[in-house]
């Protein structure tokens, strides 16, 4: 079952809905770049990071973990059976990180200065390390994606109109690039995994510099390890989640067999995260907060029970692991749990010690975030329609 471009109609009603969100997001972005961050957001001096950092950046990075976890499994640990899921996961990761950077461009005050960390280094800064890793990893992802583009267009480059003169050049770039990359791709595959481990964990270290601001249920020296383990644990569920969505939306074979094999790893990986999370709570004695009824504690409980323990228990059952709906439901819970965890660490669990830092994202913030997600989905659809990403041979007719 080789990956192939989908032979489907592109403009469906769903795509039009995406387009509406994209336009609304674009208008908000224009407003942000004319009136400032304060014009469209509810961010304040007491609450400098909100939805954009918590969701667009932190959650985006976590959910793109499918890329490095499947690459590690299929290419490094030699489980070649999983190769069919590496391409969609790679596409999601490449798109995910691209949108992390786009989200950052909206969030940072001086978007035009985003290159400055390359020149001015502060090696004490956790954010500096995160930024460097994300920047290099984004390029690694593009390099890893290059052969997919080459496979589709090598030997049949046909640029429209006046660009036709560049056909020959594009051919050369595709074939030379492909030939070189096929020899050294292993470097980028390992590098991708290493860089991911570095910045996934460091995203957790970000809040360690503010011990008095993050709620003790989340503030632990183990935070980097928790971020790494949860990113690794969410990788395969994310692949299950998006593959199931994509295959049912495009009416393709759901690949239940391979996905249920893939999700078996999650029992162990999520279990590890669960043990660490519960163990950390026990060691630091923070369980005393659990029943105090504040919204922060409740958010923690939902995250732990619905996002970690419940899906872990579900996945213990072989019956659920073999059913398409079962693994989808469990995967969706895990993905939701990690999303909630990142939101909790960066938004819900954060409190300003002096002024009232209560915060709820503004409409403008939501519009930008929705707009970015819609654009991501739009490009995903564009890519799978015209590039060999999804395993397309076995189409289900309905």
């Amino acid at each position, binding site marked *: 079952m080789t990956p192939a471009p989908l032979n489907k109609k592109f403009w469906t009603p769903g795509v039009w809905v995406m387009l509406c969100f994209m336009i609304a997001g674009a208008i908000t972005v224009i407003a942000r770049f004319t009136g400032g961050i304060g014009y469209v957001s509810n961010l304040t001096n007491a609450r400098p990071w909100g939805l954009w950092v918590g969701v667009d950046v932190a959650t985006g990075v976590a959910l793109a973990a499918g890329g490095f976890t499947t690459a590690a499994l299929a290419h490094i640990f030699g489980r070649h059976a999983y190769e069919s899921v590496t391409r969609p996961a790679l596409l999601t990761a490449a798109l995910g990180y691209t949108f992390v950077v786009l989200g950052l461009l909206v969030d940072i005050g001086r978007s035009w200065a985003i290159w400055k960390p390359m020149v001015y280094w502060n090696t004490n800064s956790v954010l500096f390390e995160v930024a460097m890793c994300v920047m290099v990893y984004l390029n690694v992802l593009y390099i890893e994606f290059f052969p997919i583009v080459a496979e589709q267009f090598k030997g049949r480059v046909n640029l429209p109109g006046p660009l036709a003169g560049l056909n020959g050049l594009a051919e050369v770039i595709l074939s030379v690039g492909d030939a070189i990359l096929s*020899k050294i791709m292993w470097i980028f595959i390992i590098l991708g995994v290493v860089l991911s481990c570095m910045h996934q964990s460091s995203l957790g270290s970000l809040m360690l510099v503010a011990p008095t601001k993050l709620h003790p249920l989340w503030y632990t020296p183990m935070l980097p390890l928790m971020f790494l383990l949860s990113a690794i644990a969410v990788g395969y569920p994310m692949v299950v989640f998006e593959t199931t969505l994509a295959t049912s939306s495009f009416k393709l074979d759901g690949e239940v067999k391979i996905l249920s094999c893939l999700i078996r790893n999650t029992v162990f990986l999520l279990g590890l995260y669960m043990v660490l999370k519960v163990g950390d709570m026990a060691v630091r004695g923070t369980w005393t907060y659990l029943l105090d009824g504040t919204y922060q504690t409740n958010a923690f409980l939902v995250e732990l029970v619905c996002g970690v323990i419940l899906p872990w228990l579900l996945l213990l059952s072989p019956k659920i692991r073999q059913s398409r709906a079962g693994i989808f439901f469990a995967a969706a819970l895990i993905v939701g749990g990690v999303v909630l965890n990142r939101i909790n660490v960066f938004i819900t669990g954060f409190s300003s010690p002096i002024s009232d830092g209560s915060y709820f994202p503004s409409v403008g913030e939501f519009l930008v975030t929705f707009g970015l997600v819609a654009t991501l989905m739009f490009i995903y659809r564009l890519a799978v329609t015209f590039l060999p990403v999804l395993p397309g041979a076995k189409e289900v007719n309905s």
Partner: protein
Amino acid sequence: MELDRRQFFKVMGAAGAFSAMLPSPGRAAWESKAPPDAFGCLVDLTRCVGCRKCEEACAQVNDLPAPERPGCQCTVFEDDRRPDHKAYTVVNRYFTGKKDSFDKPVPTFAKVQCMHCQDPACVSACIVGALTKDETGAVRYDASKCIGCRYCMVACPFEIPAYEYHDPIMPRVMKCTFCYDRIAKDGGLPGCATICPTEAIAFGKRKTLLSVAKKRIKDNPAVYLDHVYGEKEVGGTSWMYISSVPFQQVNLPALPETPSPRLSETIQHSLFSYLWSPIALFGLLGAIMFKHREDKDEANEKGGNP
């Protein structure tokens, strides 16, 4: 994807050489980077009368807009104000339950500004090093390096850095400069300290001020609480306070004595000095990849199916 052993070791060798060339390793054990003989300010809350002259002087010296209702000493105190992008320092009034001999509540006034921590969280956090702690003790901000990530604001335990949220292109982080260009000169004082009519703000070497503070407390144990705020909070701050009312009641938060950057810097440097852990992980993964590739090749040869 082709992969051969020689190529693998070539890359690993290059990575090792690269890591050896990298500048200074992180320290194994975390050390304070506080300047040895920093300046400081001592604020005596028992002396402050809430005249807000310091706000005015600060605005003047730093080219900021004049403070809101400058002459006012009543209605302006109705709100609990914070330093913001237009004011590096503000004075607030607190009623802490203290009463005078006629049973009337006695206000306590407290000036608030950047504390200029000895080991500032903002300096450690800043992605580009736009914030630095200089020899005078001032935490300085260089807008030309800033990218506007606002991590300094997340990191600050005193909630001090403010942001020009309504500037779309060139917003700056705004906070007290400790008038670094003034105090760097002989006899120079920060704007606020020059004007204070009650000498509630004393400027000098931090070490000297600390002994002054302790002497005042010792001489008037009935007046002062036995606590110099800023002596040990987050590892010490250049600005320090003494008071007759608990500090939390005047919005000076209770803080641990550990310098804020200690944990994150220790983790970062023990994991990433010389990039040893990423390189080790690269090597380990590379070895695993080889192992599986060889296994696969062997299997193919045995099956006679290349």
